[in-house]
């Protein structure tokens, strides 16, 4: 049971943190239509996170008759408890870094949820199946941006190259399973690379040389970014404990 809880929290935290980062663009996007689009992604991801947190809360409450909720799980756990992927907590950087992060993540999330929808766990399977429709759009949206920036102007090409250099070393973690994971993530690496290569080709971009890959997010050892995200996100719940909002 505790593995299932950890896994559900890993899925929830990952969706919440990338939603949080994307929501930082709201009202600050490069053009109104894209401001709305990225905010929409953020909302989809928040919806996924809530589904997973609610399920995790049910599991935890069954287990030891405690009374956790989606909010206590999101707002009262600390930096050394969150299990989100490192990639999701990295700062937004410029538009190139944000859309590329989204692309890397969405392709992975799609492959993962595709497996997860056939899981024996009915809840996880249902949440994944529902999310796949949204994620299909996220891949299309972010992939089109990668192509546009790669094959756009010299500046946009330069910026997305820099984003690749920065983000690539956070993608290895996707495929290294934590002991609680229910899906064999190692086997997702090949189809992930294939899709990335396909879009990169169209974008006139090249895959980087193999580099050192960072890990730790799944084990709650994060970058310095997460502490700040949580400090901001959890401020009211921490300042006024136990209240209803």
């Amino acid at each position, binding site marked *: 049971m505790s593995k299932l809880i950890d896994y559900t929290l890993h899925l929830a935290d990952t969706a*919440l943190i990338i939603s*949080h980062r994307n*929501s*930082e663009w*709201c*009202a*600050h*996007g*490069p*053009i*109104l*239509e*894209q*401001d*709305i689009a990225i*905010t*929409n992604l*953020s*909302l989809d991801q*928040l*919806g996924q*996170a*809530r589904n997973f*947190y609610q399920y995790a809360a049910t599991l935890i409450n069954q287990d030891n008759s405690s009374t956790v909720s*989606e*909010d206590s799980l*999101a*707002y009262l756990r600390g930096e050394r408890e969150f299990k989100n992927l490192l990639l999701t907590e990295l700062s937004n950087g*410029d*538009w190139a870094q944000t859309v590329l992060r989204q692309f890397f993540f969405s392709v992975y999330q799609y492959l993962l949820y595709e497996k997860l929808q056939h899981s024996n766990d009915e809840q996880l399977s249902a949440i994944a199946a529902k999310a796949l429709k949204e994620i299909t759009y996220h891949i299309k949206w972010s992939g089109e941006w990668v*192509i*546009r*920036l790669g*094959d*756009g*102007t010299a*500046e*946009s090409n330069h*910026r997305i190259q820099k984003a690749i250099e920065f983000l690539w070393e956070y993608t290895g973690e996707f495929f290294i399973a934590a002991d609680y994971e229910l899906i064999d993530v190692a086997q997702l690496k090949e189809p992930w690379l294939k899709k990335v290569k396909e879009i990169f080709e169209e974008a006139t971009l090249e895959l980087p040389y193999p580099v050192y890959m960072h890990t730790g997010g799944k084990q709650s050892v994060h970058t310095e970014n997460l502490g700040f995200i949580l400090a*901001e*996100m959890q*401020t*009211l*719940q921490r300042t*006024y404990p136990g*209240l*209803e*909002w």
Partner: protein
Amino acid sequence: MQVQDLEKIFQEKVDQEIKIEPRDWMPEAYRKTNLRQISQHAHSEVVGMLPEGNWITRAPSLKRKAILIAKVQDEGGHGLYLYSAAETLGMSREQMIDDLLSGKAKYSSIFNYPTLSWADMGAIGWLVDGAAILNQVMLCRTSYGPYSRAMVRICKEESFHQRQGFEALLVLSRGTAEQKAMCQDAINRWWWPSLMMFGPKDSESTNSDQSIKWKIKRKTNDELRQSFVDMIAFQVKVLGMTLPDPHLKWNEERQHYDFGEINWDEFWSVVKGNGPCNKQRLAARRKAHEEGAWVREAAMAYAEKKAAREKQKAA
């Protein structure tokens, strides 16, 4: 046809409640007034995303966070419909945005006030959106077709915004002493600026008469402001809170609430750029615009390349 005849036909249409459409003849002043009003309205939606966007990353529960994100996103959508409606009057969105960023075009002064606590999210929904709705319900019947149709869509979403604001305050009003204080403080800060949203008094308003004759507006600033005071004076009792106006009192004879004098010096001062956040709001819009320039250029360059390739393929 003589201009006088065209004007006569135009006014007859307006009188008969026939909508004016982009290709119809219209007096130049009618076009200009609509363009100014609709583009200001669009800018208000977009600048209005900032004060609420300020709390997205700090929303106190996942449900509130989802509602707030959806609401701010709706405002972006409203901005889009309104820019499109304004474009039918012959100005491009780029030009309108340039006018906003240069300070030439105005937006609603209410967004020049800061959002200092979570309760401000509730107060904005309840008071600011509440005031906006009264204006917008009237505008659903405005004489210019594209504006009227945009307003019908917008009004549906706005009433949800107001309800969620009231509901957020209701939770606070039933909470701890700290939450109640937060709620009252937000009402105190947002009440007077909300009353100012209806604009100058009728006796001081320069555009009112003509706008009513052309049915751009159907109610005067003072009429709308009175409806707002009557509505909120009733609703505030449900919250168990008060409005910061010692002169607020039911007038049996008028069947309306009497209320105190607005601080018009403050109103004009904020309009002229001296509100607490005028500079910050414009700076945030400029920053997004400037930092987005290379993104827009890249998208354009790619679209051109793609079109050229397809043309080549076809040839």
